């Protein structure tokens, strides 16, 4: 039986409900919150600040450093043991690769821009939520950048092209599943994260990437809206004072 209707009633190009906010972590220089369905990510930016040890400093450009971490109770199964894992290290690296093209690191010689992401709960799509939250945090911190980065999974569940797979779809038993986390610079359509679990034909992959374009634009507007909302609030509080 082919997967014609999504198990939660969503349309194929419909994401789960999204909530995005900026300025959620007062101690940070900038912060973002991105919740999609039951996957929830907090991101904080500290910096640009001096990079230690000094031997790592580069007088030509700053360093963007990401740290992805699932809270121990945030997984679908057993407790996630605290501390870095192979998985969290790889995700931290691909996050850096996904975000670096939009950040003007030439503006921050010898410095580091640290991005820390914590996930209180996950239901698939956590690396995409982490990237989308991190982009909001970078903008909130006033880091020099040319656009946001928007990330969401596209994929196939038993032949149906869908976006934003949840855990139940990723684990779909009755047909083949391909889960493809993608990050995009929305103003140019350039792709900065591309991974895949599953099997897919080249033409189907390209079709899915093209079909998903409007979804990225919609999410990007939500991210930009979160930053604008934050600055409207700051403006109001200045005017009142």
């Amino acid at each position, binding site marked *: 039986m082919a997967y014609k209707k999504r198990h939660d009633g969503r349309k194929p190009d419909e994401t789960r409900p999204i909530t995005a906010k900026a300025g959620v972590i007062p101690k940070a220089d900038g912060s973002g919150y991105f919740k999609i369905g039951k996957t929830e990510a907090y991101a904080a930016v500290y910096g640009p600040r001096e990079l230690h040890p000094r031997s790592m400093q580069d007088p030509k450009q700053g360093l963007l450093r990401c740290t992805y971490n699932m809270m121990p*109770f945030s997984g679908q199964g057993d407790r996630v043991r605290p501390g870095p894992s192979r998985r969290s290290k790889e995700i931290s690296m691909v996050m850096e690769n996904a975000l670096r093209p939009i950040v003007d690191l030439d503006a921050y010689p010898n410095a580091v821009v640290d991005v820390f992401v914590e996930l209180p709960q996950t239901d698939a799509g956590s690396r995409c939520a982490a990237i989308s939250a991190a982009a909001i945090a970078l903008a909130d911190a006033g880091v020099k950048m040319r656009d946001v980065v928007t990330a969401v999974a596209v994929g196939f569940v038993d032949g149906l092209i869908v976006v934003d797979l949840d855990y139940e779809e990723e684990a779909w038993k009755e047909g083949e599943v391909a889960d493809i986390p993608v990050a995009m610079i929305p103003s140019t359509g350039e792709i900065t994260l591309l991974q895949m679990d599953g099997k897919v034909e080249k033409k189907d992959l390209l079709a899915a990437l093209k079909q998903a374009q409007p979804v990225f634009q919609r999410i990007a507007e939500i991210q930009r809206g979160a930053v604008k909302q934050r600055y409207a609030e700051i403006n109001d509080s200045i005017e009142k004072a």
Partner: protein
Amino acid sequence: MEKVTAMDNALKEHISEALGKGLRLDGRKLDEFRPISIEVGKVATAEGSAEIRCGETHVVVGVKMEVGKPYSDRPDSGTLMVNAELRPISNPLFETGPPTIESIEVARVIDRTIRESKTIDEKKLCIKAGEKVWMANIDVCPLNHDGNLIDIGALAALAALKDTKMPKIDANGQADYHEHTDEGLALESFPVAVTIVKIGSNLLVDPTDEEMRVADARLTVGSLEDGRICALQKGGDGPLTIDDIERMIDLAITTGKELRKLV
């Protein structure tokens, strides 16, 4: 402890000067807690959870129930474990890496408060003596750390334990995290932790990050609903007189009664 910087010395002077006039930097009275809000059950992947905000300190506490083997010296008892991590998302002074001594202390004092008060009857966590027991893992995860993590984390831990629903056990004897029962954890007592810091001759409740950094000494007092003390931890390298300790315990127990009403 982190080393004391010139900034800390200036901060201490500033805080002490204000305290001389009976003021705290955020305008609170010395014995006043910051406003607290607690939301339970928000984390779908945890068996129990509490998201707590106290002033700008913001913490998520989750309870994860796992099936494991009992300790050989207590074959009919489940286990309880509290873990806390001062993650670098929550404060510019925290770094990535293995748990620091500060985070270990936070975890152990919260653990002691809950364990010594026998909040959870570990015998009731036994599934099959000598083979299978429930292990209750409590993780304290700050998102924004503006001081007093022990008190705030302990209060949220109690709320999260109260919120906990046990998972079903599947045919293989493992926890099925997608099916929960209506059965909760029976809480046998309601311990709360209250930390009092001493700055000069002043005793302060609910210290902020800055107040903690400049404190001469602190005392965390875990207390029960009947007024008994269930845990103590003196922190900081300044000494306390017996008179100080008496005043701090009184203040902690009075404050604890108000905190307990929130859970």
